[in-house]
């Protein structure tokens, strides 16, 4: 049987990096977004949908991303997929933020 790329159990992984990595502010925000979107009140994202979406990134994109970047791309994909945010709204907001950042 062929192993899907995200099913890693039992494969060689080398030594484990046991150093602590305190989450950055950005990572904490991504974490908070997922918690809020999946809480009992909103239920906009199920953990199983989140996992399925990350598995669908394809192998190259998946491994290019850090752990929380995968979360961020999954949240974005699911919001688009469910029609909660439109592509136009997303692009408009990104371009607004880019302009604000570029402003002196």
């Amino acid at each position, binding site marked *: *049987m062929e192993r899907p790329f995200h099913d890693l*159990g039992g494969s060689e992984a080398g030594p484990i990096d046991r150093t602590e990595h305190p989450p950055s502010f950005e990572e904490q925000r991504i974490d908070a977004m997922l918690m809020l979107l999946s809480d009992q009140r909103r239920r906009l994202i199920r953990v199983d*949908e989140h996992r399925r979406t990350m598995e669908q990134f394809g192998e190259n994109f998946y491994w290019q991303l850090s752990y929380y970047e995968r979360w961020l791309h999954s949240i974005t994909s699911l919001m688009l997929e469910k029609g909660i945010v439109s592509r136009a709204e997303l692009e408009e907001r990104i371009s607004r933020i880019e302009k604000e950042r570029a402003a002196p």
Partner: protein
Amino acid sequence: MSRLAIGTRVRVRDLIHTGHRRTPVYVRGREGEVVRVVGPFLNPEQLAYGSKGLPAVTLYRIRFSQREVWGGTYAGAAADTLDIEIYEHWLEPVAAH
């Protein structure tokens, strides 16, 4: 309703990969024993696509021999076991040895 009683010998089915699946490749085709009926849960392989996950599926804790799972590559003791929770649709009973 759970179909498999504690103590039942089971084999993990090798279902197709397509879509979101919750049973890792390394236990597929392996034989183990039901050690706990965890209970019914919404089916995560359906929830993954935005459905309600119904009907619920029974989750079982299955105990495998590490040597059975990893074969000749396992260097630990012969008595070592691995417990993993698997949904009922992945399991089929096998005749006692």
